[in-house]
């Protein structure tokens, strides 16, 4: 990628990369200022029911943070607050949303537009619903490159091609000519990741982004996320109901339950010595029913 800022050199946590893609933990990243954070975040419905009860979360340059929890645990609401896209009927009732140090908890949509897409990218579970089904994906990716990343019109085609190529898509020209219905879920999610990365953001939030995909495709996308971290110094917030997915990519993990974080820390520590009964329950289910029991012996 020619015009990418060279964050790799600037980010201390990127000097390490495990041979098997296992993230290594670099304490230097802990002293670096967070690129995105929420502090004491509270989210409530308009009638005053609190759904997120004072959550702290921070991700530093080049760090991969896992966020684990079930539906209704508050993990997705927290990420949506971080993106300034809380669902209708909910609002922030306390705390700060810090993007590169700037508190946007009560910012208007215009302030958010400068940040979302440019400093923060996001991909969700259902890529098809974020793409216009009637328009070729190439045209939509070019539009994002032009509007969000400010790429001059005559360069957008070439940039779109480079971007998809860098995400490991084969037959890039063919993909660019296709529409949503003509692409597999894995290809669509790569196109969405390309759109999220078009403006070279500092943070990528992937909320259940691989959940709906076949497991072999999921593995390829997790590889891709690891690469993006390493090559671009991208900070990653990986949201998943699946502790195993998070354990493969993230060096730090937060466990959400009922609108609060019940456990957090280095992934290896949490897996080895879970402190909260809920985390222990998640691990026990894996030990009892997972494929691990056939493969350990």
């Amino acid at each position, binding site marked *: 990628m020619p015009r990418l800022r060279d964050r790799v050199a600037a980010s201390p946590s990127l000097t390490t990369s495990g041979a*098997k*893609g296992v993230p290594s933990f670099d304490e230097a990243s802990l002293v670096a200022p967070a690129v995105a954070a929420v502090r004491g975040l509270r989210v409530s419905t308009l009638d005053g029911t609190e759904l997120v009860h004072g959550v702290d979360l921070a991700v530093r340059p080049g760090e991969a943070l896992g966020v684990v929890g079930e539906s209704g645990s508050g993990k997705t609401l927290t990420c949506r607050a971080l993106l300034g896209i809380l669902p209708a009927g909910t609002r922030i009732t306390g705390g700060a949303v810090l993007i590169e140090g700037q508190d946007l908890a009560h910012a208007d949509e215009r302030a958010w537009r400068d940040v979302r897409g440019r400093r923060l990218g996001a991909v969700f579970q259902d890529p098809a619903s974020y793409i216009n089904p009637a328009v070729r994906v190439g045209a939509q990716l070019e539009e994002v490159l032009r509007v969000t990343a400010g790429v001059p019109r005559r360069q957008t085609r070439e940039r779109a091609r480079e971007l998809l190529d860098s995400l490991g898509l084969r037959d890039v020209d063919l993909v660019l000519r296709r529409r949503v219905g003509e692409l597999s879920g894995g290809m669509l999610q790569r196109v969405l990741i390309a759109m999220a990365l078009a403006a070279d953001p500092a943070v990528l939030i992937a909320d259940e982004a691989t959940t709906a995909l076949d*497991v072999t495709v999921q*593995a390829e996308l997790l590889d891709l996320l690891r690469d993006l971290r390493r090559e671009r110094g991208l900070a990653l917030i990986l949201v998943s109901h699946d502790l*195993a997915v998070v*354990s493969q990519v993230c060096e730090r993990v937060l466990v959400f339950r009922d609108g609060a974080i019940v456990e957090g820390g280095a992934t290896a520590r949490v897996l080895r010595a879970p402190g909260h009964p809920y985390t222990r329950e998640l691990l026990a289910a*894996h030990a009892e*029913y997972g494929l691990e029991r056939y*493969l350990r012996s």
Partner: protein
Amino acid sequence: MTALLEVEDLSVDLGRAPRVRVLHDVSLRVRPGEVVGVVGESGSGKTTLARAILRAVDASTGRIVVQGREVQALRGRRLRDWRRAGAAQYVFQDPLRSLDPGVRVVDSVAEGLRIAGVPRDEAAARVTAALAAVGLSDELARRRPAELSGGQRQRIAIARALAVEPRLLILDEPVSALDAASRDRVIRALIGLRDAAAGRGDDALGMLVISHDIGSLAAVSDRLVVLYRGRVVEDGLTRDVVSSPRHPYTRLLISSVPLIGVDAPDRAERTALRALVDA
């Protein structure tokens, strides 16, 4: 031991001009007391297989025999009677769509028995037994579907299928729509059914569980059938298939599953397997 379900050299073509073969000579068997998992990703043909067993699509060649009855030959009234007799019961991914939202779940569970003309007292006892088999109370069953969690609804759907005392239960993605805690409860319910069937000989319930999720299948199945691009590429004891897969696709599939505390096979190996599978 007579098989409860025998699929023999089944091929299915879908679409017209051109017809596309989506299943190629698929064979598999479910015996009494056995839980057979069919794992396949999108495009594997697993949904078509389920639909063919349901008689929702026609076979181009081959046979599907349920308890000695060749179902592809059934038409019209005989097909209706066979379905109503309930020898094979089906449970689908989304129980919200299969349960009537206006009806208390206990009445949904009893519906098949009412249609079959089972006397009220006996029906009530069978409903209670079916609910207990999946770990649900009568009290819970007096609610309506919207008042239950996804996992509870899925267990209700399984109880409803069990109440008619089928010999064969076919479950299509039974846990895919559920979150972790609900998923575990449904898996526990299925393991409970499997254990209850053990040792009952020819009378035991057999189950065919179809899913893209090899993790949940490995938890509940005795045998695993791996479907890839419409073909059975592996069929064996679950333990053997998972711990020493033979076909490159099965190896790719298993090495792609995220695990906790087990080193994932490295990427180079997966890339090589993918190339082998695609070739």
